[in-house]
């Protein structure tokens, strides 16, 4: 592994200055579960590694029912799923947080890193999209906010400019009668990269019979995670029924343009998009109706 200089700024402005001013390649480090692996493999290079774990803004995990949820970019998965109030309000997030790697990885891995790494198969991104989350970005020109679905540009690439870093993710507050669910398909029962991932959030009417609105995000079916905007819109104002769900699942399937690789053939992935979108919607609907839907970890009885 190549030598690099380790930087641990304690204020955001110091971090931005270092990122903007350093010569050579500066890589941001959160949990390091992607970065260190990639540096060791020689897939990435770095002259400097800047750790965001000492920045107060990046360690914030704040939730208020009226404000929504703020997840600092250095907050590891285990803090998210071990927070009862957050787990109750955003069960779809927990679906993702609980399956990223295993317990050891979850002690370190962050949603911010998962997003910035911009892998098409990242498990947190579809559900962040479904929840309508926004990225809070700091840079030499100040802060800006970008919708999660607009953040990734290609495998491993995102919209951050030189000098910018992700500070936090913000999720809007949860509406009444709403629910969300993320699930992925993997050939094993744990420790795997999504062959396809689907996240859905739905808001139903008071009776739980009609869709008020829905959002669907997909993983591993295109160069970037996808926001299946139309598939969600098709559900607005529709009755909750097998047909409406099937229509949305088909719409999601139609925008998938997967590749064949060692993880699965493209046609198989395409097939799975429909199955998983339907299953994610069904889980979200049940949760919106107050029913218990286990996440992958609960299902496996861990």
């Amino acid at each position, binding site marked *: 592994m*190549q*030598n690099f200089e380790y930087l641990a700024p304690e204020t955001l402005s110091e971090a931005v200055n270092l990122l903007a001013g350093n010569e050579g390649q500066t890589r941001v480090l959160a949990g390091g579960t992607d970065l260190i692996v990639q540096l060791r493999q020689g897939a990435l290079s770095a002259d400097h590694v800047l750790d965001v774990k000492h920045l107060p803004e990046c360690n914030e995990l704040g939730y208020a029912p009226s404000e929504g949820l703020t997840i600092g970019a250095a907050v590891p998965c285990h803090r998210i799923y071990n927070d009862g109030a957050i787990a109750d309000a955003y069960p779809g997030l927990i679906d993702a947080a609980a399956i990223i790697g295993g317990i050891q990885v979850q002690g370190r891995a962050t949603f911010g890193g998962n997003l910035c790494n911009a892998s098409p198969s990242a498990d947190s991104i579809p559900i962040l999209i479904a929840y309508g989350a926004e990225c809070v970005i700091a840079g030499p020109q100040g802060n800006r906010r970008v919708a999660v679905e607009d953040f990734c540009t290609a495998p491993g690439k995102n919209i951050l400019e030189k000098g910018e870093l992700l500070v936090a993710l913000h999720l809007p507050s949860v509406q009444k009668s709403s629910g969300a669910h993320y699930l992925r398909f993997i*050939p*094993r029962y*744990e420790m795997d990269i999504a062959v396809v991932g689907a996240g859905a959030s739905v808001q139903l009417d008071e009776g739980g019979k009609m869709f008020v609105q829905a959002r669907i995000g997909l993983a591993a079916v295109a160069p970037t995670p996808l926001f299946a905007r139309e598939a969600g819109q098709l559900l607005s104002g529709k009755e909750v029924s097998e047909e409406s769900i099937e229509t949305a699942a088909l719409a999601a399937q139609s925008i998938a343009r997967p590749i064949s690789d*060692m993880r*699965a*053939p493209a046609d198989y992935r395409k097939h799975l998009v429909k*199955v998983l979108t339907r299953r994610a919607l069904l889980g979200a609907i049940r949760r919106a109706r107050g029913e218990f839907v286990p996440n992958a970890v609960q299902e496996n009885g861990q």
Partner: protein
Amino acid sequence: MSNASKNGNGNGKYKVIGTRPIRHDGVDKVTGRAAYGIDTHLGGMLYGQILRSPHPYARIRGIDTSKAKALKGVRAVITAADLPPSEADEVLNLVEGSFRLKDLRSNILADEKVFYQGHSVAAVAATNLHIAEEALQLIEVDYEILPHVDDVVAAMRDDAPLLHEDLTTKEFGEDTGKNSNIASHIQFKLGDLEKGFAESDIIVEEEFETASVHQGYIESHNATAEWKTDGQLTVWTSTQGAFGVQKQTAAILGLPVSKVRVVPMEIGGGFGGKIPVYLAPQAAILSKKCGHPVKIVMTRADVFRSTGPTPSSYVKVKLGADNSGKLLAAQATIAFAAGAFPGSPVGAGAVCVLSCYAIPNGLVDGYDVVLNRPRSAAYRAPGSTQVNLAVETLMDEIAVKLGMDPIELRLLNAAEEGTRRVDGAVYPVVGCRETLEQTKVHEHYLAPLSGPHQGRGVATGFWMNAGLKSTVTANVNEDGTVNLMEGSTDIGGSRASIAMQFAEVLGLPAEAVNPMVGDTASVGYTELTGGSRVTFATGWAAYEAAQEVKKILIGKAALYWETTEDEVRFEEGDFVHSTDPEKRLTFKELAGHLVDLGGPVVGTGAVDPNSGVGGSFTTCIADVEVDPETGKIKILRFTMIQDAGTAIHPSYVEGQMQGGSVQGIGWALNEEYFYNEGRMQNASFLDYRIPTCLDVPMIETVIVEVPHPDHPFGVRGVGEASIAPPPAAIANAIYDAVGIRLHELPMRPDRVLAACLAKEEAEAATANG
């Protein structure tokens, strides 16, 4: 059934055998103190790294190491030019086969050509790992890329790219002089095949393919070498056989074996993959060049790309039976991908393919095929799993066609004492029928399935088990304990199993025996830990050593009582004066007097037993659930029933059965070398998917005990057979669940789904048409 499997109190016949003492190496292992190969650390040690080919097949036009040599911290850089030259026909004979020395050397450092991605091309020693790694990038290799072939059937064609210009096909042991990638063609024949098929009422025939899979041991390959100025080389490494490493390293380096001492460190798994040497010769040459010890450890990607895998295979089987289910004829064609050099276990596959049944007429053809993949290595019951899938799937088809219970069909045809196998061997007492009978009455086999898309399958498997040379030396300590030096590296709890056989003879508790694994300079010659042989053969050596100790101690007791040896009896663990039964000494008491009784008490067992053709049979039951929308399979329940002969330490027998089962499940479901353009894409445990804890249920076991007729305690090896039948049992369970037959491993979700969808389409077509 043995009661050994039900309780921990022995099986009635023996005192120590059949109990479950804590293993002697247990505390060190669970507290992290056990020293594995990677823990070797010597003063002044340097770190080695290997440069590996990025291409599946290329000619090396030149290698320029000057820039690497010039890097600060680099102490030595070596290439094939640093190996002794090879004569064309020099052969090294090892128990696992005979190999051309030229090929063994090329696998260590490629000379004219690289034959696979990951082929070792050069090695560097530097003051630290990172410098060594950087130096690799400074080595310039001029490759002329050649068209490659990495599919076994394609490699056999006349127009396939040839790997070795000097490789000619051996047919039935004779050199045909024909240049080809088929290194050898073997054949076994029994009876009159045509007549057998002509008399058959049912004939089933299918082609099968299995992917290349890796042994998947957790500890990666490693070697530390110190070449001292007196010309003496010492190698510390994790291996299944120190003497095998000594032989290979000496031959590759052109040294007499006496110049090489090999110290076997604790081993973190092998399963056959830690028999060949991969790093010791390079570490040795580097050490010689720079005068320091050199340590080399592989990354996981290197382990996948450059070591071990088991051959991928093409297997075609045809079975004929009469309407009662009695098998009348069988034919099998087996092609194994040996990898870059000849030497796949196709011979073993050819023996195993029809081994479970009495079949009067048979023909088996086996082909050993080279292609542009890493040199394959043994993997638990080498060759048996590939061929088992074919035969056991077809047996299931026959059972379905006849509406017969699959266990009844197997019982009707089960191999037994006197059955002649297609290779000519005749079975002595074997436990095939007994495992089937235990299966038939097992609660699992009788339990109802509990939901839709669930199915149950069974399969029977076999491994022949080896005998081979082993040595054990025992020294009696004055406190009544015994130090036991043995040559078998301990992979699966064999220290305990060997010590227990020694203890049984002398009526000692297992804890009074202190087993240790010696290096090549401190213990008698012992062959590898493999072939399910250690508990059998090294255990036998321990029995012999104990007999000698007993005999010497009888002499010592006679001396103590000032009488003659024939006046002393050994009884219930005590030495007793025959005519004066008041005089009685426990082993411990007698040991306490040894200081005054002359020479040391040392017993040696040095054996070379022929294990006969007994082998071990096993039958398993698998319950699966198929998700018809995704093709994903869940193993709901799994039971393995195996003949152990005699279970010395039942926990370790069960451990072997469970380990083999889980590995077999891995072959069945997801494990495979995934290639693109001759390059392995999934060289990590993330994407090379071995089963995790959540992928398998608790594996239930039943130990059957049909004692080996020759072994002093009736031991049969149990290490391997259990890997063979799980894929077929799972395939049969999938058929039972959703009515599809898969003929290719792994039975990945996308393949299962495709078959489910094809079946639906076919049914829809029939319904419409």
